């Protein structure tokens, strides 16, 4: 930013929705924070680092930004990638009168705790107490490619992404 770079590109074409949402949010917050405070606090850096560690990714490297990239920049540990979080759903709608409508991407159950990646601020915890189908029938286990309804949750908007920590 000090060098006047106006735009950065984040790879997304071959990445998952969860990867794109997490990385884009982390960078957007970092840039906004730096613009406001002209520095990064240790606390927020730690938080963003922990968010970036949640997604399936190759090792992070500065490539040739500071010094020419050497063999330590080569990633060859694909088999050891550990999945720490998974996309559970996409928010379709969230109003007080109709509740939270989710496009389900993986199974979850009443009793699970999900997290919503809001566009601003830290992610919002989403404890799942009751799940209903679009027919208002109780759902014991969600199925991908269906829509389910949960009670309204403040600060959550359409197109927020819902993730689930892997055990």
């Amino acid at each position, binding site marked *: 930013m000090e060098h006047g770079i106006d735009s950065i590109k984040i790879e997304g074409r071959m990445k998952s929705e969860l990867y794109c949402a997490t990385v884009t949010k982390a960078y957007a917050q970092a840039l906004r924070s730096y613009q406001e405070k002209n520095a990064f606090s240790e606390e927020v850096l730690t938080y963003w680092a922990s968010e970036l560690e949640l997604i399936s990714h190759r090792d992070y490297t500065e490539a040739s930004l500071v010094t020419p990239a050497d063999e330590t920049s*080569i990633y060859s540990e694909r088999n050891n990638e550990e999945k720490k979080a998974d996309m559970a759903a996409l928010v379709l709608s969230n*109003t007080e009168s*109709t509740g939270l409508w989710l*496009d389900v991407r993986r199974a979850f159950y009443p009793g699970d705790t999900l997290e919503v990646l809001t566009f601003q601020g830290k992610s919002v915890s989403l404890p799942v107490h009751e799940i209903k189908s679009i027919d208002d029938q109780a759902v014991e286990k969600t199925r991908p*490619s269906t829509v389910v309804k949960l009670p309204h949750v403040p600060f959550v908007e*359409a197109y927020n992404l819902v993730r689930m920590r892997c055990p």
Partner: protein
Amino acid sequence: VKLDSFIVAADNQEQIHQWYDQGYRQFVIGLKEFSRLGEWESDQIEPLFKKYSLATFHFEWDTLAHEDKLNKQLDLFFKLWSTLPWGSIRCLDTGVVHALRESTFPITALLEAGFHNQEAMFEFTSREKKITTVQLSRELPKNQCVLYSNVLASLNLSVELPLFTALLLFYSPRSLLTPIVGLGKESIQTIASSEESPHKGFILRENRHGTFMFHPKFYSLLTQMSELMNLSVTWFIDLRPVAFSECRDFSAQLAQWLATSRAESELDILMESFPHESMRGFHHINKSDIIFTKLKNHHRAHDQYRYVGEVMDFSSSKGLLVQLSGGVQLKLGQKLWLQSPQGAQLEIELSRLTNLNQQSCHDSGNDTLIFINYVKQIPSKSAVFLIQEA
């Protein structure tokens, strides 16, 4: 076609000899310092000019022009190489072309990295007056090769087309093979397979400039010779990165075939001595276009059908839950076209619209999630189109 119409990237003296003996006179020389795949050492160059006095040698300068290396390369070029009677300097990087504007040599611009439109080619060649020849991209289809060849000829620029070359897929300035093979070799060459796809046979070379990955098949227009030879262009032949020891016989046979019969019936036998298969790339037909035609949803492209959104879920009592994303407002009575992922297609009349509060509506208003009438054969992920009046 005169043999002067062929320009051959030579890896060593033996290869020059093979082609020179057949009557070929144009050779590309790649020095290790300046060329991505060149194998020539500094002390081998000068004797070539004496030994092959009828030949014209062209200096290859196609490495990535790093900011910190370019000035050193320029110094080296003017100190050691600019006194030799090169036929041309063959440049890939636009910065190198510009940096050589004061030199005495004509420049062949290697336009393999883009310049797939006339505007870019004209702009570049008109700014850089030293450019006398343009090597067109090996990704151009035949009609564009012909068009650009004619247009560039009218600008008094010579045109070179790749005839038989490797297809570079990937380059990194990093040494990607050394961590696997180990240090100690100036150049590493191997064949690799993809971890993420069934593709295999990629030719890899690592040298002082980085790591190069090539398509398993060579680009070859040898089968098109009879119809292409009418073009007034130069034809570029480059067997690298295949080691000369692996294509010695092929190199000799190719030189002979081009100089004599050029019979298509002999090509299969000729190719038997080459260690890789060949293809015409996009020259004859762009296969991607054919594949995309099959995948293309004609209703999306057609003016009569406007994309509305996607079915997210369904219920026989509530209807189809549609997420509207096409910026279209639905109204009762409209005609819709529904298409399931399995290929089922149905035309329906919109007879029911219900919002998430279960209130019936006349139109979708600002809602982006709305129920429409239930249709039995239409599951989740089906696409919804509005049939527009003609």
